[in-house]
């Protein structure tokens, strides 16, 4: 069953297609937008710019380090480079260049990593990007955006162009259903409340937003109402929304398609541990590498299905009631 179907969400195409649409719009609107490709433009969606503006599209080949430092040079001359590849290749191969050439001086370079999380599924773990929140989170000048649907992807790309400074945008080849309409806000650093509820709160990002909405549907059948926050910006983190959710519900579950250690949940826990200790559960990839399989199988193996989230919610509510 497609993610979000249980919650009645409108199906969409793969998220990467909306990146392709958004980056083309951005290039049309702003002549300073340029695209660099690690020879995966037909996979990431970036190839839309190659067709429309070949002079502003540079295939740097299978050489991510070079691509990042070239991007830094372009940004230093006033251009707005989008360095694009599979998320794992981009952040892991070029982390040193991202850190030294881009992050330290806070250059206006945008990284767009596609095929994130476990969505390369049958390709196996080498191309999965399940450490990218930890890696980008280790770069203090970076804004980190994790869209969860077509509308937020398109708005994230435009927000990244507008923002002066380095940005990492996480994309995916998984179809993520519509959560938002055009009129819904997407403000960098401000989590979106996508479902109201008072028994517990699920703080999710990316693909796990529709999965959490499915979980909420299951829980509602048992009379449990959960709030869901779409934490689409991992930095700057919306501390106020986290604290409010903890204060209002007293029980928090985080859900992310990423290693639990060093991920979004860890960042949320840091906020709560300091300012409002609250019972928590963490949904994500435990300390082991996924293997090949369908995404559904991998999500089940890692404890990341709607059923797992629903169980975690009930578990954290039990803990809340004991204390």
């Amino acid at each position, binding site marked *: 069953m497609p993610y979000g179907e249980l919650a009645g969400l409108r199906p969409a195409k793969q998220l990467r297609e909306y990146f392709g649409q958004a980056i083309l719009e951005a290039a049309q609107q702003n002549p300073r937008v*340029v695209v660099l490709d690690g020879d995966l433009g037909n996979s990431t969606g970036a190839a839309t710019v190659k067709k429309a503006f070949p002079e502003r599209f540079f295939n740097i080949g299978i050489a991510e380090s070079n691509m990042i430092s070239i991007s830094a040079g372009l940004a230093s001359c006033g251009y707005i480079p989008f360095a694009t590849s599979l998320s794992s290749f981009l952040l892991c191969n070029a982390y040193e260049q991202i850190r030294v050439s881009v992050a330290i001086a806070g250059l206006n370079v945008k990284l767009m990593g596609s095929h994130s999380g476990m969505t390369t599924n049958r390709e196996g773990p080498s191309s999965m990007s399940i450490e990218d929140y930890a890696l980008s989170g280790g770069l203090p000048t970076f804004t980190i955006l994790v869209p969860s649907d077509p509308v937020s992807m398109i708005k994230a790309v435009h927000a990244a162009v507008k923002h002066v400074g380095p940005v990492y945008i996480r994309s995916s080849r998984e179809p993520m259903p519509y959560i938002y309409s055009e009129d819904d806000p997407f403000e960098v650093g401000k989590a979106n409340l996508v479902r109201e509820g008072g028994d517990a709160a699920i703080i999710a990002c990316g693909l796990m937003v529709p999965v959490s909405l499915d979980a909420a549907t299951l829980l509602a059948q048992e009379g449990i109402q959960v709030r869901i926050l779409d934490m689409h910006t991992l930095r700057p983190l919306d501390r106020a929304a986290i604290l409010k959710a903890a204060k209002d519900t007293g029980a928090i579950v985080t859900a992310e398609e990423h290693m639990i250690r060093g991920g979004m949940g860890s960042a949320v826990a840091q906020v709560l541990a300091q300012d409002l200790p609250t019972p928590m559960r963490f949904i994500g990839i435990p300390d082991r590498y996924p293997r090949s399989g369908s995404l559904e199988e991998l999500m089940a193996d890692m404890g990341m299905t709607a059923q797992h989230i629903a169980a975690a919610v009930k578990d954290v509510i039990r803990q809340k009631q004991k204390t």
Partner: protein
Amino acid sequence: MIDQTATEVEQLIEMARGFRLDVLEMTSRYHAHLSSCLSAVEIMTAIYFGGVLRYRPHQPKWEERDRFILSKGHAAPLFYTVLAHAGYFDTSRLAHFREIGDELHGHPIQDSLPGVELTSGSLGQGLSFGIGHVLARRLSGLDYWVYVLMGDGECEAGQVWEAAMSAAHYKANQLVAIIDHNQYQQTGPIQREMSLTPFDEKWRSFGWHVEECNGHNITDLLDTLQRAKQVTDRPVVIIAHTVKGKGISFVEADYSFHGRGLSPEQAKLAREEILCRTVN
């Protein structure tokens, strides 16, 4: 040709002597890469003061400035003294190299000081960064040259060859990589530790125009830099043959000086030698 008179060359040689003294002082205080600076003194003197680089110290972000990108960031002390004497900031700040509260960091940080184009200290990134400036130049229609100073040990980094390949592919012209070929890396002679041979052939086979020169002879450097300006259809590499620690005989003889400065006694001897020995 830049027609340098003998007097002008002599002035540059004297200027280089002053940079050596500054570098000696800066690297003795908190330890820094003295010998890696000394091999590049004439290269940087020729570029900044021999009429090669077009720059405006009081307008460091002038869009049509020629770029000088220091990729071998451990030559920071030399870079800072050259920038200060070029007028980018006051020479009094050189005394605060590596100290908290000023911006003369151990390795340069982009835009922390006027004239610093790139954050460096992790080798291998400057050439790619320079290509970015070339691509930007094409898009903008501006006209400038891009110079990147690299170390020879740095050329062991894979990214250098990614950059070399892509520069040729994109016909990145008005791009000049200068390699301070001082023959040593931290732990020993390059030939012994990780041979680059045949170095010139590697660059040629990647599609670059190759020049070589004596990296301590101002006249040879200026002539070579001038020849580089005649090449407009592809990138140019200048392999500048240099001596690590040039100008201080006991440093020249001992590669273990790579990452450290001198003791007060050694510095005294070094100062005396720099004052009386002319490098050319």
